[in-house]
C-alpha cells in the first residue's frame, strides 16, 4: 500500500465520538479548494526526536508525533482512550517509534502516505490476505472526485481517492459485511455492495443537506451541531421556490422575524426599495412623520433599522441585493442573536444576512440557462369606488343639486348641472380612471451561467437580464449584469477573483401619483372629440356659481415629455487569497472594491404646469432639468487566520482577523432652466443654469479587530465566544473605538445515552447566548465640530468660515444587548423538527439629536439618549408527512411575536411631540393633511403606536362624536393634548406556513403569510367615507351607509355634509382603529422535471418547467385602499431551467 496517493492536509472539523468512524471519515473540508489541490508525495519516513512521555493517554502521544512530523493519525477515540503509555525516544524512525509505542498494546498500525492508521491487532491480517477492490469515484458530470473517502463498513479500514478519483482497497477475508461507505464533503454519502469481480464506478450526488450542517457566519463556517448562535439558512432551491425575481421578498417566508415594512404608499412599485427589519425596530430613525416628503422611496441610506448584508465576505447595499439575480445565490443565512453576529460588531445590531454566491465547479463546461416570463397585473380589488351612475346618484342624494335659498342661489344652475352630468352619462361616459395610469405587463428575465475548468483552474461566467416593468405605465426597473469568476489553486494556495458589472436603469411613471386618479369623477371625459388629451377637465361648479376654475386633467402631464430616470452602474471586484499554512491553520485575505455611480435625470417639459415658473406670455423660460450624479467608492479588506483542531474530545474552531473599510461618497447636482421644447431635453438646449453646481462629499472609515472561538467537548457541550473591537471615523475623537462581544453556551442532549436509548429523539439542543453589538448608521461627520467655508462672498478682509455644527467628542455607538435562548428538537427519524427561541434585545445609547438652547449657538447636537427594547419569541416547525421515493410532503410553519417598547426618550423627541400638537393647533377645521394620525414618542409606547383621541363613538342624540379626555370626562371637541395611544400596528403574531409536495417529477409548493393581533388606522374610511368630498371627488361605495341621519340613530360615521360645503376633517380618533388580521397567499409554484431519457436525447442534463403565482390573494380584516401612490400588483410566472 505504498502507492502514491494524492492526499493533502485534511483537517478535522468534527468528530463523532462513540461511533466507529475513522478520523479519515471525519475529515470534512471546509474550503473546497483543499480538496482539489494535489501534491506530490513527500517522503513518508521521518525521524522523531525527543519524545518523552510518562503515563499519558495514547492519543496524546499521537498528537505529539503529529506536531513533530507531517504525519497524522487515524484512530478510533473510543478504542484508544483508556490506554496509557510511557515512551522515551531520543531519535528514531517513525516505524521504530510506533513499534515501540504499540508493543504492549492491542493495536497495530499501517502507514498510508502520511496517514497512520491505528487498528486492533487481530484485524490486521487484511493486508496480506483478502481481496483487493479497485474503483473510481465520479460525480454526475462524470468528473473524478479526488479526496473522497472509502471505508469498509464496520471497520476502521479506509482509503481515499487520488487525483483521478481512483482508489484501491484491500479487504480482509474475515469481513462478512461486504459494504463500502463512500463519502465526500458536499456529496451524499453512499453505501455500495461490492464483489471482487469487477472494478467499481461510484457516482456521488451533490447533497444540499450537507450544506445545512454548516453555519456560515461570513468569516468562518461552523458545524451547526456545535454552534450556539441563532441562525436560519436558506438553500438556493428553497429560495427560488419562494420567488424567482425578488430575493428579499423570498427571504420573508423563511424567517418570521425578517419583515419587509408594509408599504401601503408605494405598493408594488419596482423602484421602491423595501424597508426591512429583523426582530423589530432597534432605532429611532429620523423623525420623519411630520415631513414625509423627505423620505425617498429609493434611498435607504443611513436607515438605522436595516440589517447588514454580507455577500461573499463583503458588505453590500440593500439596493444591490434587491437587483441581484436569485439564480446566482448558493445560500442565505440570517444571523440574529449576539453569538452569531458579534463578529460584525458595530454593524450587527439589526442582524446580519450572509449571502454566498455560486462558485464555479470543475469539470467540462456546464451551461445553465434560466428564463422567467412573468405576467404582472395591477391589483385594484381594494378600491371600492363608484361608477358614473352611482356617483351622480350619490351627489343627488347628498343634495348637491339643491340651491341654497339663504344665499339667494337659483335652482336653475343646479338643475342645469345635474342634467349636463346626466347627459354625459347617457352618452356613455363612464371613465374608469384607475385603469388610465395602469397596465398589465409581461416581463422577462434571463440568466445564464457557464462554468468549468480543471481542478487547478476554474472559471465561471454569469449573465443576467431582468426587465421589470411596473404596473403604472412607463415605470420600469431594468437590470443587466455580467460577472466573471476565476479560481486558481496552487499547492496550498487558492486565489479567487470575481468581477461583476451591474447596470440598473429605472424610470418613474410620468403618470405621477396613483391617488390623483382615484379621486377623479367617473362622468368626466378626459379626451376631446378628436381624441386629444384635455388639459383641463370640465368644471361643473361653473353651472351653479358661474366662477370658472381650472381643473387639471391628471392625464395631461403624462402626455408631455416629462421624465425621471435613474441609471445606476456598479462595478465590483472581489479578490480572495487563501493559504492553508498547515493542517490547522488557514490564512485568508479578501479585498473588495466596489464602485457605484448613479445618475438621476429629472426633466419637466416646458409646457408642464408643474414648472416653478410656468410658461406664460411674459415668461418664456420654462422647462426644468435636474441632473444629479453620485459616485460611491468602497474598499473592504478582511484578513483572517483560522485555527481548527480536534484533540481528543475537544474541538476548537478559532479565528483572528482584521477588517478595514473605507467608503467615499461624492456627488453633484445641477439645475438647468428654459428649454425650447419637450423633445429637446439635453442640457445643451437649456437657456441657463440655476445656481452653480452643488457638490458634496463624505468619507468614512472603519477598522475592526475580531476574534472568535467555537469550542465543543465530545460534541455535547458547546461554547462560543467572540470579541470585536471596532473603530470608526464617524465618531467623536474620545470614543473612536468600542468593544463588542458575545458569549454562547449550548448542550446537545441527544448525545446523552439515556436520550439515545429512547430512539425517538434525533436532535435536542438547548442553547443560550448573550452579547453586545452596535450600530452606526449616521452620516460621516456628525460627531465633529466643523467649520463651513463661506465661499459665496468674501468678507472685506478675506474669506471667512463659521461653525457649522457642534461636535460631540464623547459620542458613542448605539449598543444593543441581546439575550437569546432556545432549543431545537428533531424527532421520529427527523420527520418532525421544532425550533424555538426567546429573545430580549435592548438598545441603549440611541443616537439622537439633543435640543439645546439656541443661545449656545446651536439648536442641537448628537448625543446618546434613549433606550428601546424588543422582546419576543420565534417558533419554526417542519413536519415531513410523507417520505418515499415517489412521494414526499413537507409542512412548514413559522411564527414570531415581537413587542417593541420605547424605554426612554430624549428631549428632542418631546420637542417633536410638541410640534405635532402645534401642528394640530395651527391647522384649520378643514385642513386635510391632519386627517392622518402622526407618530409621537412616549415612554412605554412603541414606534408603531397609533396616536389619537379615544372615542366613544357618535352620540345618537346629536350626531357629534364623543371623545374621552385623559381624566375620563367626555367632550365633543377634539383636544390635541389629550391624544393617547389608540392602537398599535405591530402584530401579536406573524409568520408564514406552507407545504411542499413532491410526486415523481412534479413538485408543488405553497407559501402563505399571516399576521394577527395588530391594528390599523383605516384611512380609507376617514378620507373616502366620513370625510368624503362627495361633490368634488370620487368616493368609496360605503359613503352613504352607516351615517348618522336623525336623533336616535346609532351610526358609525358622522352625518353627511349636505350639498357642497367643505367637510370638516375628522382628526385621529379611535373610532377608525380596526383590528388587523391578514392572510396572504404569497406564492404557489408547480414544477415539472422533464424525464431524463428525453432530456438526454437533447444533449441536456436537466430541463425543469415551472409555473408560479405571486401575491395570489390577500385577505384582511381591514377594508381599505392599498397602494395609494402606486398600486399593488399580482403576478403569474412561467419559468424554464435548462442545464447542459
Amino acid at each position, binding site marked *: 500500500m505504498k502507492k502514491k496517493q494524492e492526499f493533502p492536509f485534511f483537517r478535522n472539523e468534527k468528530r463523532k465520538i462513540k461511533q466507529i468512524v475513522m478520523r479519515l471519515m471525519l475529515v470534512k473540508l471546509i474550503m473546497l479548494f483543499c480538496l482539489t489541490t494535489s501534491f506530490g508525495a513527500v517522503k513518508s519516513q521521518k525521524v522523531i526526536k525527543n519524545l518523552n512521555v510518562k503515563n499519558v493517554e495514547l492519543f496524546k502521544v499521537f498528537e505529539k508525533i503529529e506536531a513533530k512530523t507531517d504525519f497524522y493519525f487515524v484512530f478510533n477515540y473510543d478504542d484508544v482512550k483508556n490506554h496509557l503509555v510511557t515512551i522515551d525516544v531520543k531519535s528514531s524512525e517513525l516505524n521504530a517509534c510506533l513499534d515501540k509505542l504499540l508493543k504492549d498494546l492491542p493495536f497495530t498500525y499501517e502507514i498510508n502516505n502520511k496517514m497512520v492508521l491505528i487498528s486492533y491487532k487481530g484485524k490486521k491480517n487484511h493486508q496480506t490476505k483478502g481481496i483487493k477492490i479497485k474503483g473510481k469515484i465520479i460525480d454526475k458530470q462524470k468528473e473524478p472526485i479526488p479526496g473522497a473517502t472509502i471505508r469498509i463498513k464496520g471497520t476502521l479500514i479506509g482509503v481515499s481517492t487520488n487525483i483521478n478519483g481512483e482508489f484501491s482497497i484491500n479487504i480482509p477475508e474475515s469481513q462478512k459485511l461486504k459494504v463500502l461507505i463512500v463519502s465526500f464533503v458536499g456529496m451524499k454519502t453512499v453505501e455500495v455492495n461490492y464483489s471482487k469481480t469487477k472494478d467499481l464506478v461510484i457516482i456521488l450526488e451533490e447533497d444540499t443537506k450537507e450544506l445545512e450542517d454548516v453555519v456560515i457566519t461570513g468569516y468562518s463556517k461552523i458545524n451547526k451541531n456545535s454552534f450556539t448562535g441563532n441562525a436560519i439558512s436558506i438553500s438556493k432551491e428553497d429560495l427560488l421556490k419562494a420567488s424567482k425575481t425578488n430575493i428579499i421578498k423570498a427571504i420573508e417566508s423563511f424567517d418570521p422575524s425578517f419583515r419587509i415594512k408594509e408599504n401601503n404608499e408605494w405598493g408594488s412599485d419596482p423602484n421602491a426599495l423595501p424597508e426591512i427589519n429583523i426582530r423589530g425596530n432597534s432605532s429611532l430613525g429620523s423623525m420623519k412623520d411630520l415631513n414625509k416628503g423627505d423620505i425617498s422611496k429609493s434611498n435607504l441610506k443611513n436607515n438605522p433599522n436595516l440589517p447588514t448584508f454580507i455577500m461573499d465576505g463583503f458588505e453590500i447595499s440593500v439596493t444591490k441585493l434587491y437587483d441581484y439575480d436569485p439564480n446566482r445565490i448558493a445560500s442565505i443565512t440570517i444571523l440574529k442573536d449576539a453569538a452569531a453576529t458579534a463578529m460584525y460588531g458595530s454593524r450587527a445590531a439589526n442582524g446580519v444576512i450572509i449571502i454566498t454566491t455560486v462558485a464555479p465547479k470543475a469539470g467540462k463546461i456546464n451551461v445553465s440557462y434560466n428564463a422567467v416570463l412573468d405576467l404582472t397585473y395591477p391589483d385594484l380589488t381594494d378600491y371600492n369606488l363608484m361608477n358614473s351612475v352611482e356617483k351622480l346618484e350619490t351627489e343627488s342624494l347628498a343634495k348637491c343639486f339643491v340651491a341654497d335659498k339663504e344665499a339667494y342661489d337659483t335652482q336653475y344652475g343646479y338643475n342645469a348641472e345635474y342634467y349636463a352630468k346626466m347627459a354625459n352619462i347617457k352618452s356613455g361616459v363612464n371613465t374608469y380612471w384607475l385603469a388610465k395610469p395602469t397596465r398589465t405587463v409581461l416581463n422577462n428575465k434571463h440568466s445564464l451561467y457557464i462554468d468549468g475548468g480543471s481542478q487547478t483552474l476554474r472559471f465561471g461566467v454569469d449573465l443576467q437580464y431582468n426587465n421589470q416593468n411596473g404596473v403604472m405605465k412607463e415605470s420600469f426597473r431594468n437590470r443587466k449584469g455580467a460577472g466573471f469568476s476565476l479560481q486558481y489553486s496552487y499547492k496550498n494556495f487558492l486565489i479567487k477573483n470575481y468581477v461583476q458589472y451591474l447596470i440598473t436603469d429605472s424610470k418613474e411613471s410620468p403618470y405621477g401619483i396613483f391617488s390623483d386618479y382615484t379621486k377623479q369623477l367617473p362622468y368626466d371625459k378626459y379626451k376631446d372629440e378628436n381624441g386629444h388629451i384635455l388639459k383641463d377637465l370640465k368644471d361643473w361648479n361653473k353651472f351653479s356659481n358661474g366662477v370658472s376654475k381650472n381643473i387639471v386633467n391628471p392625464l395631461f402631464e403624462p402626455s408631455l415629455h416629462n421624465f425621471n430616470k435613474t441609471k445606476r452602474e456598479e462595478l465590483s471586484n472581489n479578490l480572495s487569497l487563501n493559504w492553508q*499554512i498547515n493542517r490547522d*491553520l488557514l*490564512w485568508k485575505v479578501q479585498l473588495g472594491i466596489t464602485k457605484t455611480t448613479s445618475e438621476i435625470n429629472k426633466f419637466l417639459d416646458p409646457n408642464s404646469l408643474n414648472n416653478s415658473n410656468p410658461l406664460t406670455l411674459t415668461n418664456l423660460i420654462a422647462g426644468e432639468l435636474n441632473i444629479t450624479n453620485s459616485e460611491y467608492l468602497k474598499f473592504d479588506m478582511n*484578513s483572517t*487566520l483560522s485555527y481548527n483542531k480536534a484533540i481528543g474530545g475537544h474541538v476548537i474552531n478559532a479565528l*483572528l482577523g*482584521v477588517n478595514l473599510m473605507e467608503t467615499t461618497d461624492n456627488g453633484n447636482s445641477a439645475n438647468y432652466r428654459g428649454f425650447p421644447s419637450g423633445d429637446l431635453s439635453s442640457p445643451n438646449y437649456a437657456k441657463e443654469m440655476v445656481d452653480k453646481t452643488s*457638490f*458634496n*462629499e*463624505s*468619507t*468614512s*472609515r*472603519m*477598522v475592526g*479587530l475580531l476574534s472568535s472561538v467555537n469550542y465543543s467537548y465530545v460534541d455535547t457541550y458547546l461554547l462560543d465566544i467572540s470579541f470585536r473591537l471596532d*473603530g*470608526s*471615523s464617524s465618531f467623536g*475623537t474620545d470614543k*473612536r473605538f468600542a468593544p463588542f462581544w458575545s458569549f454562547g453556551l449550548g448542550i446537545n442532549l441527544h448525545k446523552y445515552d439515556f436520550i439515545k436509548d429512547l430512539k425517538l429523539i434525533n436532535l435536542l439542543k438547548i442553547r443560550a447566548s448573550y452579547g453586545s453589538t452596535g450600530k452606526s448608521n449616521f452620516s*460621516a*461627520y456628525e460627531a*465633529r*465640530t*466643523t*467649520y*463651513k*467655508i*463661506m465661499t459665496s*462672498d*468674501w*468678507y*472685506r*478682509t*478675506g*474669506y*471667512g*468660515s*463659521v*461653525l*457649522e455644527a*457642534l*461636535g460631540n467628542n464623547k459620542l458613542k455607538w448605539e449598543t444593543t444587548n441581546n439575550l437569546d435562548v432556545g432549543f431545537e428538537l428533531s424527532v421520529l427519524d427527523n420527520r418532525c423538527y421544532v425550533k424555538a427561541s426567546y429573545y430580549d434585545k435592548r438598545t441603549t445609547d440611541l443616537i439622537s439629536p439633543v*435640543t*439645546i*438652547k*439656541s*443661545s*449656545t*449657538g*446651536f*439648536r442641537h*447636537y448628537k448625543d446618546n439618549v434613549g433606550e428601546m427594547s424588543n422582546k419576543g419569541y420565534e417558533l419554526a416547525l417542519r413536519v415531513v408527512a410523507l417520505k418515499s421515493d415517489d412521494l414526499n410532503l413537507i409542512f412548514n410553519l413559522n411564527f414570531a411575536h415581537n413587542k417593541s417598547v420605547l424605554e426612554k426618550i430624549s*428631549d428632542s423627541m418631546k*420637542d417633536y411631540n410638541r410640534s405635532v400638537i402645534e401642528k394640530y393647533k395651527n391647522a384649520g377645521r378643514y385642513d386635510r393633511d391632519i386627517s392622518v394620525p402622526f407618530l409621537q414618542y412616549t415612554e412605554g409606547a412603541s414606534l408603531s403606536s397609533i396616536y389619537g383621541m379615544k372615542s366613544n363613538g357618535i352620540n345618537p342624540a346629536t350626531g357629534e362624536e364623543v371623545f374621552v379626555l385623559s381624566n375620563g370626562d367626555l367632550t365633543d371637541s377634539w383636544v390635541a393634548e389629550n391624544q393617547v395611544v389608540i392602537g398599535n400596528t405591530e402584530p401579536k403574531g406573524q409568520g408564514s406556513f406552507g407545504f411542499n409536495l413532491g410526486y415523481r417529477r412534479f413538485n408543488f409548493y405553497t407559501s402563505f403569510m399571516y399576521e394577527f393581533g395588530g391594528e390599523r388606522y383605516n384611512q380609507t374610511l376617514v378620507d373616502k367615507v366620513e370625510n368624503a368630498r362627495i361633490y368634488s371627488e370620487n368616493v368609496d361605495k360605503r359613503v352613504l351607509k352607516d351615517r348618522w341621519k336623525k336623533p336616535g340613530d346609532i351610526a358609525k360615521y358622522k352625518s353627511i355634509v349636505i350639498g357642497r360645503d367643505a367637510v370638516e376633517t375628522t382628526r385621529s380618533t379611535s373610532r377608525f382603529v380596526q383590528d388587523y388580521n391578514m392572510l396572504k397567499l404569497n406564492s404557489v409554484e408547480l414544477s415539472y422535471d422533464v424525464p431524463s431519457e428525453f432530456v438526454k436525447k437533447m444533449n441536456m442534463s436537466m430541463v425543469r418547467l415551472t409555473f408560479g403565482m405571486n401575491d395570489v390573494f390577500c385577505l384582511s380584516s381591514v377594508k381599505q385602499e392599498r397602494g395609494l401612490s402606486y398600486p399593488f400588483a399580482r403576478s403569474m410566472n412561467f419559468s424554464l431551467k435548462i442545464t447542459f
Partner: protein
Amino acid sequence: MKILKYILISVFFLSSCSNWLDISPEDEVVEEKLFKEASGYRNALNGIYKQIAEPSLYGKEATWGFMDVLAQTYNTGWGGIQTYDSYYKALTYDYELDAVKPYIESMWENAYNSIANCNNIIKNISKVDKSKFPQGQLEIDLIKGESLGLRAFLHFDMLRMFAPAPINDDGKSYIPYYKNYPSLGNENLIAKEVMSNVVADLVEAQTLVVQFDTMDILHKQWLSERCRFYASSSSSIKTAEDVFFAFRGFRMNYMAITAILARAYNYMGEYEKSKIEAEKIINLQDDKGGLGSLVYFTPAEKLNKSKKMTCDLIFSLSYPKLVDAFNPYCDDIDTELTINNFRNLFDDAADYRKKSLTYTTNTWNYYSSKYKNNNLGNVEESILDMIPMIRLSEMYYIIAEYYANNGNFTKATEYLDDVREGRNCTKGALNITDMDSFKMELLKEVRREFLGEGQVFFYYKKFNEKLSRKMKDEAFVFPLPKSEKI
C-alpha cells in the same frame, strides 16, 4: 514562528489605525485642522463679521429692517409698509405673532452662534504658538481683542433687545453670557451682571487692540478714513498690504471698541465714564501727527460720492448683497420703506441729511439714500456694501447726555449743536432748558442722524419713551425665542 510573523505584520498594520480614522470632510473643515495655521484664525474671525452682516442680523433686520420698522421709521399703507407684510404685523409690537417671531428668533440665533464662534477663537488662540503668526504676538492680540470686542458687542445688543432698559430694570435675569466654547447652555443673568461682563470684555479688547491700531504712525494711518474704508494708498498715506490688516473700519478697530464701550457706559448710566471714552474718540480729531483727523464730520461736498458719511463713521460691516436686499423696498412694488413723517423730520432746510441723504421718485414719498444705488450722482461703488454700525455723532450725544444729567443744558446743547453744524445745520436753533426738552431734541436728532441704522429704537427704550400711542411698556423687551426656551 510563522504565525508570529503574521501577527506582527497585523499589529504593525493596525498601529496606524487611529490616524487612519482621522478624516476630514472636503466641503467643511474640522476645527483642529482650521486652527493649525494662522490663516485659520483669520478666516474664523472674518467669518464672524461676515455672519453678523447677514440680513438676519445687521445686514438688514437689526439695522434698517425690523429694528427701524419698530422705531416707526417708515410709512405704512400704500406707498409704505403694506398691511399684508410681516413688517406691518411687527408694528403691533406683538412679538408672539407667527409673522414676527422669526425676526427675533433669527437675530438671536445669529448673534449667539457668532458668540460661540468668538469663544472658539478665544479658546484656541489662548494656547497657540505665536511663531505661527506673521505678526507674532501683535496679531494674536489683535485677533483675540477683536473676538472679545465682538463677543461683548453682540451680548450688549442682545441685552438691549431682550432685557428692559436700566430705567425699567426689575433685577430679573434675562439673557445668558457665554465665555466658553463649547457650552451646552448657560444660566440667564441679570442685566447688571451682563453689563459688567460686557464692560470687562470691552476693556480687555481695548487694551489688546490698541497696540496694533496706534503703535506707530503707519498703523494710525490705517485707521484714517481713506484707509479704513477704501484702503487706497497715496504718496503720504500707505495702506496695509495684507488685506487682513487693511479696511480697519470694517472690523472691531480700537476706535470701534472705545465707542462701543462709551455706548455701554452710557447705557448703564455711568455717564462720567462714557464721557471719558467718547472724548478719546473725539480727541482723535486733534491727533494730527501729520495725518489729518481720523474721524471728523463728513463735509457736504463728499456726500455726492458717499452716502454713508464715511468720515465720521467709526465702525461698519460689509454685506455684499446689501443693495439687492434693499432694492425690493424702493421699487414701487409691494412694501416700500419710505420715511415716516418726512415733512416734519427735519427742522433745518439746509440739513444735508435731508438734502443729500434722501430722495424721492414722486415728490411725496421719500427714501433714505443710504442703501440705494440710485444713480443720483457719482456714487462710490466700493462702499455699496457698507452698513454703518457706530458713528462719531453718537459720541457727541453721549457727552451731551453727560452734561444734561449734570444739569448743564447749555453744554449739552452745545454738543448737540456740534453735530448739527457738522450736518450743515445752523447753530443755536435748539431750545433746551430741562431734561424733557433735552430728551425731545435728542430723540428728534437721533431720528435724523441714525435713519436706517437701527439705533432709534434703543434711544426711545433708554428713555422709556413710547414709539406709538398704542405701544405697551413690555413692548420694549423682546420675548426669548422658542428655541431658547427649552
